[in-house]
């Protein structure tokens, strides 16, 4: 019975990118699921000690993408979860060259391996809403069908386009494998540590002068839920994963109690480049593009297919604010206190003036 087998959860799952936070969390959650027999974590780097606890029940194989070719077929993997997609160059791990090696070449080789793995039934790939590119003629809200109008400037966005191209090729060659591509909005949570969370955690936040990008976030816990469901259940296709609703960049900065410093786009780009070369700050062209154009996606398809609604962008961002209250200067509480103080001041002045009037 092929149909019942296709619906059953895969018994052997290979997860790539387990040396990073998201990969480790997904792998540990899959390992804890009794329906999955074996979870293999594949990564060229050794997981940091902070994540080692999570990976107790996961078989770890340290292998670069090329060696992965043999591993996927030898293990008889039934599902491959590809999370080894880096969103920003890591200066300690070889910078942009290593990032491209991992994102593009790594995906290419992993998919080549998956293609020849006979027992494979499921492929889940982490993508990003950066796949929609950035153009001034873009519609305000992207559905999964929207094609990018211009090749984006950012390195991550270009990698994403390449990765999705490989997945399209894979789908053509292995139509029997249920391929799920998840286009995630930027991750956020109380503890998540990404380029964007570090950006919002600064006390002074540089923004682009004359632009107020519309942003969306997805809470890491919701992203994990969606990833888990797409391995255990069958959801072939491409899905936008984001929290409903929108925060304008200026609004997000204000909600976080930070102070925005608007800079002209050129100045911001060159300052960011200088900062990156010195090794502080990680604002790349990906972020500048995001701050100029903004990015909002339609998640109707996700909610319908998965029967799961991620928490709203505003709620996810509130969770981030909770974890980053130090460094904020203009918080809602302080503003409220200031408002009350001014009103009290006015009242006292008036009281003083009227009583003074009676005496005289």
């Amino acid at each position, binding site marked *: 019975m092929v149909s019942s087998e296709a619906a059953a959860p895969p018994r052997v799952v290979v997860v790539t990118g387990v040396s990073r936070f998201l990969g480790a969390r997904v792998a540990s959650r899959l390992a804890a699921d009794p329906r999955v027999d074996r979870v293999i974590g594949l990564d060229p780097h050794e997981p940091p000690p902070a994540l080692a606890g999570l990976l107790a029940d996961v078989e770890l194989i340290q292998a670069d993408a090329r060696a992965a070719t043999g591993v996927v077929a030898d293990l008889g993997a039934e599902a491959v979860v590809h999370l080894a997609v880096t969103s920003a160059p890591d200066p300690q791990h070889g910078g942009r060259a290593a990032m491209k090696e991992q994102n593009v070449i790594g995906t290419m080789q992993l998919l080549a391996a998956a293609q020849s793995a006979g027992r494979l039934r499921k492929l889940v790939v982490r993508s990003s809403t950066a796949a929609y590119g950035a153009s001034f003629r873009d*519609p305000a809200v992207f559905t999964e069908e929207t094609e990018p109008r211009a090749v984006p400037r950012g390195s991550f966005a270009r990698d994403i386009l390449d990765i999705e191209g490989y997945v399209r090729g894979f789908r053509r060659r292995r139509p029997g494998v249920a391929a799920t591509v998840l286009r995630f909005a930027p991750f956020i949570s109380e503890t998540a540590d990404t380029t964007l969370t570090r950006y919002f955690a600064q006390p002074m936040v540089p923004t682009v002068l004359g632009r107020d990008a519309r942003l969306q976030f997805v809470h890491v816990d919701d992203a994990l839920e969606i990833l888990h469901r797409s391995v255990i259940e069958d959801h072939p296709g491409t899905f936008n994963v984001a929290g409903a609703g929108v925060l304008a960049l200026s*609004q997000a900065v204000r909600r976080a109690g930070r102070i925005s410093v608007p800079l002209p786009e050129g100045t911001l780009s060159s300052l960011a480049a200088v900062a990156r070369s010195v090794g502080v700050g990680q604002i790349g062209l990906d972020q500048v593009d995001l701050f100029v154009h903004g990015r909002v996606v339609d998640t109707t398809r996700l909610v319908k297919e998965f029967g799961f609604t991620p928490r709203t962008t505003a709620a996810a961002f509130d969770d981030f604010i909770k974890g980053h209250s130090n460094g904020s200067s203009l918080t809602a509480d302080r*503003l409220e206190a200031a408002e009350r103080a001014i009103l009290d001041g006015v009242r006292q002045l008036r009281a003083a003036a009227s009583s003074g009037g009676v005496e005289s």
Partner: protein
Amino acid sequence: MSQDEYHKALPGHANFALPKEKPYKPLNGKRPIPEKPAPVVEEAPAPDPVDVWDQRVAGGLAFLRRRLAGAYDVDEFGFDRELNDSVFQPMLRVLYRDWFRTEVFGVENIPDTGGGLIVGNHSGTLALDALMLTTALHDKHPLQRHLRLLGADLVFRMPVLSELARKAGATVACNPDAERLMSEGELVGVFPEGFKGIGKRYSERYKLQRFGRGGFVSAALRTGTPITPVAIVGAEEIYPILADLKPLARLLGIPYFPVTPTFPWLGPLGLVPLPSKWLIEFCEPIPTAHLTEYADDPMVVYNLADQVRETIQATLHTLLEKRPDPFGR
């Protein structure tokens, strides 16, 4: 045969009657006969003027606090309703009421709920007519409905302008956005003439330009949204274009470089619009719900676009007759 007998013999003469007078229709809320003044409602205690100011200060401070704390909502197109209602619209209303003395007709043609596509003529060098149309709708409609404008991508290319446009509820003129807004039940405003309309010479005033491919019609057909033509008189005179310096425009990457009686001679002062008298008329909506399957039929789309164009042109002529002097009261 006498003359009476002869007349009776003519077909259809016996039952001839003069056409009935049409019932009068209030156009702008004023009735032809002066009404009795509304009974004055006795306001029990006249509020203490100081208390009114107290409330205003408190209201203003609360608004400021909400803005600074980011405690407001922005929709997926970037539209900021609170900012519109309390900042943009009051500012535009000064221009709308005191500078252009705008009169609005046919606002009853705009429904209280549900989507609508409002198609207007475009003129006036800078797209002030679009802003005035938004204000007219916000000011005259009983529910203060917001008009979501579709703008050229040039608007969204420019810093500052793009930010303001998004906050004011505009978005890029493309079918996905138009259809999304209309199916969410919003009123969408579109000017199919585009830059051909606002960049035309003064001598071409009130002559509608080409309507493009009628993309706005197919968007309306696909969502079954009624199309309401609107004619705007007055915008042509605010910055009359005498000449267009094409090479300079090309150099600056803009569609035209206008030379008006005041611009560029007076520098920034040339940006002050001439105080023409404005008339805006919303025509009867054209239903499209029965045409949904024809959204891709070029003949249907073209004919409908032509019908909209003819309606606007005819309404422009009748409005112009009502306004003999462009700068009159």
